[in-house]
C-alpha cells in the first residue's frame, strides 16, 4: 500500500498576463525521496514551486500536505507547514553570523536570543545531516558552497519536512556538488522529501529517485530513475510530436559568412561556457543549434555579436577577423541579432515604436544628420515596417511595452531584417509566442535564407530545428558535439548528443 505523499499538488493552474505558466500540473513528493523537477527554462518549474512556498496563489488546483488540503496564503504559512526553499540567490545577511542568519525572522525566540543554545542546536543539526557549518562564522567569510549549506540548515532548523532547492548546483564547483548530494541523500534518509529543480540531466540521473518532467507549463510524466535514461528524459523535456516537413527549396549556398574557430569564453559567473566551439555558416543556409538550454547558447550568440569576450579562439565574419570587437563593429558588419531577452535588450520597453525601429541605425543617414534625428523619416519608416510585417499596435508613438509578445518579436525582426543583414543570429526567437506569431517568424527566417543570408538559429524545440535547419549543430556543456546535415540525422541521434552521449555511427 503506497504511503500518503508528503506533498501533493493537483491540477495546479497559474496564469500571468499573456502566459499560462502552469497548466493543470500535478506533482507529488514522498517522504524519504529525492524528487527532481526537470524541465527547460520557462517550463513552469519555478512557478510551481513558488506556489508551493506560498509566493504565488494558484488560479486553480489544490495542495495537500500529508493528505490534508491546505491554502498557502504567504511564505510564512508555507514555512509553518514545513515547506522550506533554498533559492538560487541566497537570502543571507552578509555581516551577520551563521547562527544569527539562521534564527533571523523567527518569532518564538523570546526577547533575548539564547545564543549558546542556538549555536548548540545548529551544531547538532549539522552533525545529523552531515552539513559542515560553523555557527559563529560571518556569512561574508564563507564560500558559495558554505553559504548554501547555511541556507539548508536554516530551513532544517525551522523544521522543514519538504526541502526545495532551485538549481542548487549552478553556483557550485564539482567537489561542492558531490558534497551537496551527500547531504541531500542524508536529508532524505531522515524521512524528509527533497525536491530538486533542475534542467541538468546528469544530476538527475545521479541523485534523483523519481523525476517529474514539465514542458510548456504542463506535467508530462513522472518516472522512476531506475526505469528511465537520459535519452528518454531529453525527449520528454523537449517534446517530440509528429515531425513537420516543410517544402523548402534546397539551399542555394553562398560563401562562408560566419566562422568560429575553437572559441572559448566564460559565463557570467566566470566558469567556462564555450569550450573550443567551432562551426561555420554559409550564405543561404540555416544552421540550427540544438541543445538543452544553459549549455552555452546565450554565450555563443554573445561572442559573435561582440557582447562577450572570447578568451581563446577566433570569430570571423565574411572572412575578416571579428574576435573581441565592439558590438558596434559587428552591427556595421551587417549582423542582425535577435537576442533571448527581446524586451530590455532587443527592444526598449518604455520607448515607442519609432524610437525602437532606429535602435540599430540611428547613427546613419538618412535616419540622422550630423546632429539631429530626422523625425519625419523615422515616422515613415516605422509605419512602413509596421505595414510590411503586419504588426498590430495602437500607434507608432506608443510605448512598445503595450504590444503583445508576438507583435514585439515581429517588430524586432522587422528592424533587424530591414538593416539588410548578411548574418542573422536568432536566439529562441519563438519562445513564448502563439502559433500565428511562430509561423510569421519562421516565414521571415526562411525568406531571409532564400535571400542568401546566413542564419544561426538557436532553439530548444527539436521539431522546429528539424523543420527550418539545413544543418544541425548540437551544443552540450559548451562544446559543439557534432554538426550534422538535417537530412542525414534524426531526433534520436540529436537527442543523444544533447544528452552528452556520442552515438555509435555506422560508417558510410
Amino acid at each position, binding site marked *: 500500500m503506497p504511503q500518503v505523499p508528503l506533498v501533493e499538488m493537483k491540477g495546479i493552474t497559474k496564469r500571468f498576463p499573456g502566459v499560462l505558466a502552469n497548466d493543470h500540473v500535478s506533482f507529488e513528493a514522498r517522504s524519504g525521496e529525492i524528487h527532481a523537477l526537470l524541465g527547460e527554462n520557462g517550463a513552469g518549474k519555478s512557478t510551481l514551486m513558488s506556489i508551493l512556498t506560498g509566493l504565488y496563489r494558484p488560479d486553480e488546483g489544490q495542495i495537500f500536505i500529508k493528505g490534508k488540503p491546505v491554502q498557502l496564503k504567504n511564505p510564512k504559512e508555507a514555512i509553518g507547514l514545513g515547506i522550506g526553499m533554498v533559492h538560487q540567490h541566497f537570502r543571507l545577511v552578509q555581516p551577520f553570523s551563521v547562527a544569527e542568519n539562521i534564527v533571523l525572522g523567527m518569532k518564538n525566540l523570546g526577547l533575548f536570543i539564547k545564543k549558546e543554545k542556538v549555536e548548540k542546536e545548529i551544531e547538532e543539526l549539522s552533525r545529523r545531516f552531515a552539513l559542515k557549518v560553523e555557527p559563529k562564522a560571518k556569512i561574508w567569510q564563507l564560500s558559495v558552497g558554505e553559504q548554501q549549506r547555511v541556507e539548508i540548515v536554516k530551513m532544517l532548523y525551522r523544521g522543514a519536512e519538504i526541502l526545495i532547492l532551485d538549481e542548487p548546483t549552478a553556483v557550485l564547483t564539482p567537489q561542492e556538488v558531490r558534497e551537496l548530494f551527500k547531504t541531500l541523500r542524508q536529508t532524505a534518509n531522515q524521512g524528509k522529501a527533497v525536491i530538486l529543480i533542475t534542467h541538468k540531466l546528469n544530476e538527475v540521473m545521479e541523485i534523483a529517485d523519481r523525476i517529474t518532467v514539465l514542458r510548456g507549463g504542463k506535467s508530462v510524466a513522472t518516472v522512476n530513475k531506475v526505469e528511465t535514461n537520459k535519452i528518454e528524459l531529453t525527449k520528454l523535456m523537449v517534446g517530440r510530436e509528429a515531425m513537420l516537413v516543410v517544402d523548402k527549396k534546397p539551399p542555394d549556398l553562398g560563401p562562408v559568412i560566419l566562422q568560429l574557430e575553437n572559441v572559448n569564453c566564460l559565463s557570467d559567473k566566470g566558469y567556462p561556457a564555450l569550450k573550443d566551439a567551432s562551426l561555420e555558416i554559409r550564405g543561404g543556409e540555416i544552421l540550427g543549434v540544438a541543445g538543452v538550454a544553459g549549455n552555452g547558447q546565450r554565450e555563443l550568440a554573445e561572442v559573435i555579436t561582440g557582447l562577450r569576450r572570447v578568451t581563446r579562439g577566433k570569430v570571423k565574419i565574411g572572412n575578416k577577423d571579428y574576435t573581441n570587437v565592439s558590438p558596434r563593429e559587428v552591427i556595421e558588419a551587417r549582423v542582425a541579432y535577435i537576442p533571448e*531577452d527581446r524586451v530590455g*535588450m532587443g527592444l526598449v520597453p*518604455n520607448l515607442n515604436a519609432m524610437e525602437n525601429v532606429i535602435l540599430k541605425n540611428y547613427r546613419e543617414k538618412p535616419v540622422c544628420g550630423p546632429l539631429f534625428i530626422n523625425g519625419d523619416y523615422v515616422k515613415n519608416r516605422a509605419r512602413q515596417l509596421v505595414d510590411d510585417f503586419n504588426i498590430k499596435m495602437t500607434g507608432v508613438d506608443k510605448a512598445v511595452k503595450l504590444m503583445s509578445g508576438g507583435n514585439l518579436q515581429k517588430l524586432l525582426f522587422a528592424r533587424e531584417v530591414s538593416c539588410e543583414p548578411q548574418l542573422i543570429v536568432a536566439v529562441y526567437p519563438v519562445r513564448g509566442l502563439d502559433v500565428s506569431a511562430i509561423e510569421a517568424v519562421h516565414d521571415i527566417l526562411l525568406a531571409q535564407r532564400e535571400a542568401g543570408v546566413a542564419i544561426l538559429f538557436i532553439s530548444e524545440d527539436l521539431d522546429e530545428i528539424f523543420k527550418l535547419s539545413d544543418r544541425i549543430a548540437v551544443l552540450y556543456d559548451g562544446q559543439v558535439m557534432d554538426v550534422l546535415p538535417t537530412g542525414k540525422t534524426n531526433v534520436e541521434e540529436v537527442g543523444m548528443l544533447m544528452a552528452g552521449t556520442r552515438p555509435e555511427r555506422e560508417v558510410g
Partner: protein
Amino acid sequence: MPAPVIQQGSPFTIKLEKRLTTSRLNNILIPVISVFLALVVGAIFIYVTGNDPVKIYQTMLKGAFGSKYGISETVVKAIPLILTGLAVSIAFKMQLWNIGAEGQLYMGAWAAAYVALFMPDLPGFLVLPTMFLFGFLGGAIWALIPAIPRALIGVNETITTLLLNYVAILWFGYFVYGPWRDPKGFNFPLSAAFPEAARLPSMFDTRVHYGLIIGLVAVVIIYIMLKHTKWGYEIRVIGESPNAARYAGMNIVRNILLVMILSGGLAGIAGMSEVAGLTHRLQPTISPGYGYTAIIIAWLAKLNPFAILLVSFLFGGLLVGGYSVQTLGLPAATAYMLQGLILFFVLGGELFNRYRLRIRERGGK
C-alpha cells in the same frame, strides 16, 4: 512579479498592482495632490506651534507673488533653480544620480570669479563669455571627478557627488576667507567687487539679471537636445535600458562622462550667474541649497525641461515666501520644512502613479 501585499489580518486585502501605463491626467494630478497634502501637513505643524496656518500661507503667497518686488525676487531665486534643476535632470535621465549640483555650482562660481578678479587684461567684451566658459568648466570638472570612477569601475556616484559638495564649499570658503579676501574690505570675508565688465546686467529696474535669459535658453536647448538629437536619443536609451544600449553598440562609458560634464557644467553656470548677476563678489555662502532643491524640482517636473521652468518659479516663490513669514515670528526655515514635505509627498505619490490600489475582500479573486 508578485504584487506586494501591504496589509494583512483584516477582512480586506489592499493590493498594489503595477500599472502598464501612466495616464497624462495622473501625471499632473498626482503631483498637484501631493503638493496640496504636503501643505496640509505643513499647516498642521504650523498650527501646533501656535500660529495660524491660513495667515502664514497668505503671507507667504503675498510675499512671493503679491508685489512687483515679490515677483522679481521669486524670479531671482528661480534662475539658479532652473539651471541646477536642468543639470540634475539630465543626469537623472541616464540614471546617474548626481547629487552634487550644489558643489558644482560653487566650483562654477569660483572659477568664474577667478576670471573677474584676476584676469584684468581681458578685453571687456570677452570677460562675461570667459566667465561663462570658466563657470561651465568649473562645474564640469567637479562632476567629472566622480564620473570617471563611476564609468570605469562602477563606483556609486550618489555618494561621491554628495561628498564632493562639502569639499567644494570648503574650498570656496578657504578662498573667501583667505587668499581672495578683499584687503580693503574691513576684514569681512568678502572678495573684492567684480569690475563692471564682469557683471550680468539687471532688467526691469529689479535684481532680476540676464541669468534668466541663460536659464530660458538652456531650457530650450536641453529640450531639443534630448528630444531630437542623436545624443539625446542615446541618453534616453541608456537611461531606459543599458542592455539595449550595449546591444545597439552605444558607448556607455563615453556617455556617462559626457552627461556628467554637461550636468556639472550647467550647475557651474548657475554659480557663475549668481556671482556675476547678483552678488558681484564672492561671499561665504552663495546658495541656500539650490543644488539640493534642484533634485526635488527635477523629480516634481518628471525631468521635463519646461516643467522644470514652471516648478522652479514655484519653489523660488516658496523661498521668498519663507523670508516674508519672518515678520510674523516664524523662521525662514519654514520654507525648507515645506520643501521637505513636498518632496516626501511627491515621492510617496509616485507610488500611485506606478501602481494601482486594489482593495479586495479576503478570499475573493
